[in-house]
């Protein structure tokens, strides 16, 4: 790592970034956002979230050459990288950002022009599109020194990251989490623990840093607390009315995904939690009139978050829980400093997408009960086979077992070309009718 680049990184971190962001904030203040009448007051913490994520992406530009940079998948045990001081970038989080900024189609096309099929996951296509075109709403992404992927969310990330590894000619580590067709097995845990042990010398070599047990344990502690606090944040939506919507949670999810194990994420969720608790105490809801409570299944449709938020609010319907946002609160609170590898193996391989569909059904039933859900919106995401295959049966079973109405929207996470407004409108109208 160059000394000059290191100095530049630290200068930006301590002085440059705060100054630039201060200026940006001043500009922002000139354009106050006026909430729609159906919504309660905006969350104050959102400003801090914006600051954190802007700073993260801003600094990432200076990380290249100053720190080892890793591109990481959303379900990977990033705690393994933190002791080696990697600057971590999450292509999925970045893909969501591109989707939300309506750049999904353009970036996907850039990958498609190079031969990547339109049927492939749009996070992957967006990321490859960024690699080929250099375009991104965050200015620039740092070139990675390492790729770190786990197939606990899908096998797609392995194929995608193999493409990146060949493109950049850099090492890749895949943390392989055997799928839990039934219960997790001792042999699976031992395999995962051994993989962690195999990784350490590789990470030491790439980063030039030595693994320190105490630092690692501290990171595990912070990561656990962060996930736990995120779980408490989500749990505030059990209140009636819920103090935020799942559309807010989609946005506030970013730190627990991409900054987990760092104090900044934990501090943020403490701030958000106290604001939400305060709202609950005062009876302030995300919607002024919350008539119905809904659950969202699957990843967000990033290009539609705002439109959907408005549409459902107009019907007095609030999303109070989602299988997606819950994923980072479900298992990582079980991390243990005393047995970091074993607990990480369990936490990362027991997440929703690495578990059988019976497990998913029970999890949904539990969330439906705890959050007193009246109906479910199921996003069938063309990009994401592990999340989507089985949803038609889920819909049937939720009706058979709980008498719960649901609707399936055929769409995509970040590529709006896979979404038909007409079809969604027809299905949603029918759903709204059933819900009345």
């Amino acid at each position, binding site marked *: 790592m160059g000394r000059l680049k290191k100095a530049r990184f630290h200068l930006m971190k301590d002085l440059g970034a705060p100054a630039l962001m201060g200026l940006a904030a001043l500009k922002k203040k000139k354009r106050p956002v006026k909430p729609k009448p159906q919504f309660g007051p905006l969350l104050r913490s959102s400003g801090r979230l914006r600051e954190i994520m802007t700073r993260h992406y801003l600094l990432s530009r200076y990380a290249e050459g100053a720190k080892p940079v890793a591109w990481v998948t959303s379900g990977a045990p990033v705690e393994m990288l933190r002791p080696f001081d990697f600057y971590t970038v999450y292509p999925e989080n970045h893909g969501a950002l591109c989707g939300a900024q309506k750049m999904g189609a353009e970036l996907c096309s850039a990958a498609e022009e190079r031969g990547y099929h339109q049927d492939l996951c749009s996070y992957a296509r967006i990321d490859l599109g960024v690699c080929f075109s250099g375009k991104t709403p965050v200015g620039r992404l740092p070139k990675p020194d390492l790729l770190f992927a786990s197939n606990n969310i899908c*096998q797609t990330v392995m194929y995608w990251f193999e493409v990146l590894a060949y493109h950049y000619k850099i090492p890749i580590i895949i943390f392989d989490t055997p*799928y839990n067709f039934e219960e997790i097995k001792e042999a699976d845990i*031992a*395999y995962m623990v051994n993989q962690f042990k*195999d990784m350490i010398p590789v990470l030491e070599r790439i980063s030039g840093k030595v693994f320190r047990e105490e630092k690692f344990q501290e990171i595990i502690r912070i990561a656990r607390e962060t996930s736990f606090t995120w779980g408490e944040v989500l749990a505030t939506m059990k209140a009636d009315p819920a103090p935020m919507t799942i559309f807010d949670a989609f946005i506030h999810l970013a730190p627990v995904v991409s900054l987990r194990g760092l104090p900044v994420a934990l501090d943020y969720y403490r701030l958000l939690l106290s604001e939400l608790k305060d709202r609950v105490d005062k009876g302030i809801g995300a919607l002024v009139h919350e008539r119905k409570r809904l659950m969202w299944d699957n990843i967000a449709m990033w290009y539609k978050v705002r439109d959907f938020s408005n549409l459902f609010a107009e019907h007095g319907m609030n999303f109070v829980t989602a299988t997606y946002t819950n994923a980072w609160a479900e298992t990582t609170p079980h991390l243990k400093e005393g047995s970091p590898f074993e607990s990480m193996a369990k936490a990362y391989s027991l997440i929703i997408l690495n578990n059988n569909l019976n497990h998913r059904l029970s999890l949904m039933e539990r969330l439906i009960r705890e959050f007193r859900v009246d109906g479910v919106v199921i996003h069938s995401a063309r990009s994401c086979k592990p999340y989507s295959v089985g949803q038609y049966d889920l819909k049937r079973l939720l009706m058979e077992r709980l008498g719960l109405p649901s609707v399936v929207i055929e769409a995509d996470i970040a590529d709006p070309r896979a979404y038909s407004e007409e079809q969604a409108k027809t299905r949603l109208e029918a759903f709204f009718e059933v819900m009345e």
Partner: protein
Amino acid sequence: MMRFEPPSRREYIRDQKMRQGRRVFGVFPAQYPKEILWALNILPVEIWDPPVKTTRADAHLQPYICSVVRSGLELVLQGKCDDLDGFLFPHTCDSIQNLASIVNDYLGIEKPCYFFYHPKAHYGPSSRAYYLEQLRNFASTLGKRWGAVEPEELERSVSQGQQTASLVREAYDLRAAGTLGATNEEFYGVIRQGEFLHPDDFLPLMRNFLETSKGRSGSGSPVILSGVLPNPPELLRLLDELHVRVVEDDLLNCSRRLIVPPVSAADPFEVLTEQYFLMPPCSTREGSIQARLEYLFEKVERSGAKGVIFWIVKFCEPELFGVPQLVEEIKKKGLATLVLDSELHQGPSGQIRTRIEAFVEMMS
């Protein structure tokens, strides 16, 4: 060569049950230790491309799921697997993974469903230990219901597996050297019988095929076929008609799992483990692009292929991701490439024919 008439699967299965007293498992793609099943007198019958019209599976699967999974599920839903004693789902891709869970958890099917996970991480010491353990666990799980695996039986079936691999290798070698007188359709017609024949029947079939087919291959443009499976037969017929000679393949259901070098070890589980880690690179296992390229170039080298056809099952993520980089590098070597994607049972359209014709011209 002697034209080969395959037995009807249905009759063969019935015969195996009645006369041989074998149990029969429906096995979904792709890689699994068939030797353990043979040792338990269970016949694995693989479900890759059943010729069924899809009517019921659409109620369970979105339109963006591949037809291997769709037609496999259709077969189950139409009751065409009712004669089977169980199912096995190897962990091949996200779609098979979730299909396994739909069948096991949601459809109320009474038959036992088994799952076999093989390591995906870049192979290191932990993968090897895990795979060995997986084999032992698989044997003992099956043993609980179907009787314990007898060591001599396992040794015998491992040996039969090795004999099969050796005959398949020989067929591939002869074909690559231009000394196998079989059309593309005949070659795969025979090789793919191994997807359901017991080795007691497949071994003599392979021997016979080799004996009667040794000779000069026909003339034509030599190509490598890459993808999941050589289907539908109309494609192979079209290639034959256009004098395209498949001299090698990089197909998931053929060379990527059938071409296993000989291995010896005292313990049959160790043999199976060694074999697994010597299998060719594959997108569904350890599949770095570099390793796959080296493997393809090795095949080009030994067969004199002038081009590569990527014949992709529509919506197959494992295959689609690698294609652009593979194509780019293959082109750099001056070879022709053609990428086609198709539904399983959709015969090649006029447009595909035209594209193949143009591809052949490019090679000449």
